[in-house]
């Protein structure tokens, strides 16, 4: 379809892996102690991506909805697990809150774009759905872990303030409002910053990929703009859901702060 794309042979791959050897050499030279890390990370990358490549190859070939949805569910599962590993102190019902929020936040935004905006035909076309969902979930994952961590820190730091508000007759919603808004802000900063810097410092991955595979740059740019909007929307919605579902878990049913 795209005659311009140059395939990379196995031999070519081995050649670029020599760059990792060089990095290991440099790390060794400076005694940074990362030689082993670079080796294992490089190996993991190779195995993981090769596996993903084969799975995608299979899913593309099957041309049915179920395997595509299965891949998306696995992606969400990994995302939730990654957030769980990153976040030190977990709120009560952590996995339920985060899982639900990612499912609706990322799922909702991805399908909004694929079905309502670009009108994918068939709706589950894995060539679009899987990479787009991957970008959306990946970015929302970062936002979600920032939000969860920030919310927890805010509840620790603002304990006195929240309790004072409760003692003055505040509802839990109002008492938690400053903590919730600060967590939301923290989660959205990376997306907002990357939107504002887009194109100035680097060419984003999606666009680069499309251009490499022969897409007209202007189309690639439009896709990039669209996906950034979808990502920001998804980060905002996922974070909003996590905060809305999550802040209540810091309070008791009789509207006081839970003991630490």
């Amino acid at each position, binding site marked *: 379809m795209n005659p311009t794309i140059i395939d990379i042979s196995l031999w070519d791959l081995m050649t670029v892996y020599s760059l990792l050897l060089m990095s290991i050499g440099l790390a060794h030279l400076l005694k940074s102690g990362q030689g082993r890390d670079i080796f294992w990370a490089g190996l993991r990358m190779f195995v993981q991506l090769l596996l993903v490549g084969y799975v995608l190859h299979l899913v593309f070939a099957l041309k049915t909805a179920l395997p595509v949805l299965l891949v998306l569910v696995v992606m969400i599962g990994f995302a939730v697990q990654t957030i769980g590993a990153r976040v030190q102190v977990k709120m009560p019902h952590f996995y339920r809150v985060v899982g639900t929020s990612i499912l609706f936040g990322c799922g909702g935004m991805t399908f909004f774009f694929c079905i309502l905006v670009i009108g994918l035909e068939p709706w589950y076309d894995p060539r679009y759905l899987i990479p787009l969902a991957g970008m959306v979930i990946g970015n929302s994952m970062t936002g979600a872990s920032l939000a969860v961590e920030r919310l927890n820190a805010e509840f620790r730091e603002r304990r006195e303030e929240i309790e004072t508000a*409760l003692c003055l*007759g505040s509802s839990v919603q109002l008492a938690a409002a400053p903590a919730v808004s600060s967590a939301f802000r923290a989660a959205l900063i990376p997306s907002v910053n990357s939107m504002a810097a887009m194109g100035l410092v680097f060419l984003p991955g999606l666009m680069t990929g499309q251009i490499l595979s022969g897409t007209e740059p202007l189309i690639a740019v439009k896709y990039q703009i669209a996906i950034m909007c979808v990502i920001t929307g998804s980060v905002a919605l996922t974070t909003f859901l996590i905060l809305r579902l999550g802040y209540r878990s810091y309070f008791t049913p009789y509207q*006081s702060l839970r003991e630490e």
Partner: protein
Amino acid sequence: MRQAQPLLVAREVSFSRQAEAGQRLPILQETDLQVDSGEILAVVGPSGSGKSTLLRLFNRLLEPDRGQILLAGQDIRTLPPPLLRTRIPLVAQKPFLFSGTVRNNLQIPARLRRAALPDIEGPEIQEILDLCQVSPSWLDRDAHKLSIGQQQRVCVARSLVGPCQALLLDEPTSALDRPTADQLAQTFHQLARKRGLAMIFVTHDLRIIERCADCVVLLLDGTVVEEGPTDQVLHHPATDAAREFLSSDPMEKRTFAE
């Protein structure tokens, strides 16, 4: 009209805390307490005796395992917690003021309850400020620039803005120097008498209690070991446990030395 029973009553309340391995650590056992409008009840005891816990049961920052707490004859669990807390505000050990001016802080309770903002210059608030000795000249100052003693006064005044019937005091004088603490104790005394507030005053400062409390309850290891009028409990304690606690208290020794 006088109530058939005291304004605040605790009946056989017990409270335990979650300890490791699913165990419960008892904090309060079958505690009874009562205080009427216009009265100050001091709760004294060493740290860890459960006195702050007891206080926090009254506005449901904590929930007892067993027992009942009544406000004007009504079980506090029948009131929505925000309403309960406006009727029985709590003043904490360390004053906490929100950012902004003193005026802003006095309006915050109304904001948090989504009620109409009170007129700070109106007679109602002015009377509160007067009783709490909050000077009108502080109103437009940054609340965090006041001294700790002044901040605590603003906190007391702030908690009185609203339909307040009783006041919970959690060592409100312990962050203050002696003269400031004494003045604040005087203020609590005035507030109880002039506004008919019931107060539960948790402290370990026996000197302050002598200045303002009507009755004293001595709490040791989560149990009331002695209770009665202030003078009787402090100077003629009936139990050995009370005598031991009172004589071991450094504050008390200083009082004798004066």
